[in-house]
């Protein structure tokens, strides 16, 4: 035993037995399958993707010449990338605030002693578990210019009708509405769980002090929902920046790129045009944007959050 080991044993005051070694190693052994899996499906592909972004990389071509920052500078002249980025920002601005607000309202409503609330909870959660391919078909009929529900309502209200998915001015709005419809249920569940975690005694004490309904919401519910709100906001914004499936099934980026979003563009450049190096560079630009936006949210809201 060298002097260092002797010192360690001396500090603990007990000899390093096999049993103690086992106890030290055991936690790492238990988490190792998870760590290995996470490394395999997240960390290594991420590092690999970063490496690819510095190469001219067509997946099936055996040679992958190094191009340095070439793919990143090439992005500057990719007009459609910037259009897609702008569309993604519009999509995020349209989806996140409404989705969060509606989810909170529904959660508040379903947290009351409403008759049949389990049924309503199920109803609001249904879009989350409905396969997008099926909901897309339903929404295509709802948006149908002649026989669709939307235009029927528009006609009732004597408002102009639209070809919702085929007009430049309405296609993104149509996509945003479907995204909100399909995303509210999941966020509602999180708010609902957080609402049920607020002790009833706080409300009782406030009511004794004469607080009204709005005061209860403003001074008890809202502050105590901050951790859940932060979580919902951060995950909603990340999810919105990564939107793909809804666009893929409803509009394929059209008409005239008005619903072309970043991840859809990355997918097309990679698997359609075999430009994997360029697509990887786009992914890392998107990653950087999401990181900055999340950091800003954390800075603005995160420090006000108390988990006690």
């Amino acid at each position, binding site marked *: 035993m060298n002097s260092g080991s002797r010192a360690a044993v001396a500090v603990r005051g007990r000899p390093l037995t096999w049993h103690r070694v086992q106890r030290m190693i055991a936690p790492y052994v238990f988490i190792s399958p998870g760590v290995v899996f996470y490394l395999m499906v997240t960390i290594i592909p991420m590092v690999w993707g970063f490496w690819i972004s510095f190469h*001219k990389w*067509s*997946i*099936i*071509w*055996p*040679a992958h*010449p190094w191009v340095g920052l070439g793919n990143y500078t090439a992005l500057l002249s990719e007009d459609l990338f910037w259009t897609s980025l702008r569309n993604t920002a519009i999509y995020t601005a349209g989806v996140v605030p409404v989705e969060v607000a509606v989810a909170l309202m529904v959660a508040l409503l379903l947290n009351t002693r409403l008759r049949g609330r389990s049924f309503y909870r199920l109803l609001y959660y249904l879009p989350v578990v409905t396969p997008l391919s099926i909901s897309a078909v339903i929404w295509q009929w709802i948006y*149908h*210019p*002649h*026989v669709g529900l939307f235009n029927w309502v528009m006609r009732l209200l004597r408002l102009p009708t639209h*070809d919702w998915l*085929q*007009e*430049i001015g309405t296609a993104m709005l149509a996509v945003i509405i479907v995204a909100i419809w399909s995303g509210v249920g999941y966020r509602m569940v999180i708010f609902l769980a957080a609402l049920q975690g607020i002790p009833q005694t706080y409300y009782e004490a406030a009511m004794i002090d004469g607080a009204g309904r709005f005061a209860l919401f403003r001074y008890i519910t809202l502050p105590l929902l901050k951790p859940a709100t932060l979580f919902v906001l951060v995950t909603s914004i990340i999810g919105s920046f990564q939107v793909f499936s809804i666009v*893929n099934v409803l509009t394929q980026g*059209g*008409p*005239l*790129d008005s619903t072309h979003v970043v991840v859809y563009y990355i997918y097309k450049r990679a*698997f*359609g*045009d*075999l*430009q994997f190096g360029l697509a990887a560079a786009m992914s890392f630009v998107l990653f950087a944007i999401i990181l900055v936006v999340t950091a800003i949210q954390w800075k603005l809201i995160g420090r006000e959050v108390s988990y006690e």
Partner: protein
Amino acid sequence: MTRKMRRIFAFSIAALLVVGIASGVVLAKKTTIVHWQHHSPARKEMVEAFAAEFMQKNPDIDIQIESIPETDYFQKLLPALAAGAGPDTFQIPAGQVSSYAATGVLQPISPKVTTAAQIEADFVPSAVKRLKMGADYYGFPVDTQTIVLFYNPELFKAAGLDPAKPPQTWAELIEYAKAIHKRDANGVTTQMGVATGGYGPVLASLMLQNGASLWNSATDLPDFSSPAAAEALKFATDLVTEYKVEDRQMGSRWNAFRQSKLGMVFAHPAMIGSFRATVPDLVYNIAQIPAPKPGGPRTTLLTSWAYVVSKKAPSEAASKWIAYLTSADAQKRWITKTGDLPTRKALLDLPEYKNDRLLGPCMESMKNSVPAPWTTRRLDDELLRKAYELVILKDESPEKAMKWLSEEAIKAEKEQKALAKP
């Protein structure tokens, strides 16, 4: 454990090992071909039936089929090929065969199965032109499609038109479409005259008919800048904006045709299979697409996929399998089940096809077909439609839209060429 039991145990293990090795040897004699293709129920059923017959005729070959949804197809295929773990035979767009072959992931058709000279003797030139690199062919054509005009004879009759005389020229097409198109008192379309859908291969066919070559052989790049191409785009967009006989507010043109709410639609013959499966009672006819002027050419763009053999595949068995899938007998069955056009010369003039109300015009369209000269898939799938939308949604002039299309097409094609020659 007694000594006797130990002996029995040891003997059993040894016997199991011997049987295992022996059966392994027997199985090893069988060549396995893993076949991937993008999914459609009819296509899957067909290929599975072909595989069963092929394995019966070739008991030493085992075919394993994987039918993958088209949206996921390349996401699975490309990484698998890159990892060297891909299928032995698979399908890719015919225009991309040269790119794939240049990367070394494909091998040519085995000369033991058929020779280049034989392929050229048997197949329609436009169907195999994009499958040759150097002196070798790298695949057999499949899912071969032209553009034809489907029309509803009942709507023709109701509009006072003769169903036996489909439109022969663009001017006639407009005239017919006007006669069929109906609106209600509020001006809402209740029955549509004609639809192109702004679909890329339809637009390219109209341009080719009108004399645009779409390819600059000097630069070896796409060229959409000719006045003939702009004129063809104007014809297609005028149907929407000027004559108003195509109304995008009618929604899916296929649904409209199925419901007898659309008089004429430009489409691939594959829609025969789709209509047969979804609306078996629908009455419709097929004609070659009308020419720009009387007696003009009926040229149509030929789009196809190709069955190819991967580098790692057992050459002869894999080539034999895809040759079987595209044999004359197989092509006869493809056309009846899925509407895939035959590409073997001998089949085009068979009386049962030539005299068929639906298949006759499709066979003629094969003879007038020209393969897409470009490699990039963006042209068919995306860029042509965008040029069309620039005119109908943004009021751009057809000339300006074609200038934009030319620039984008050249950029996309150059990118694909650069990939094939790093």
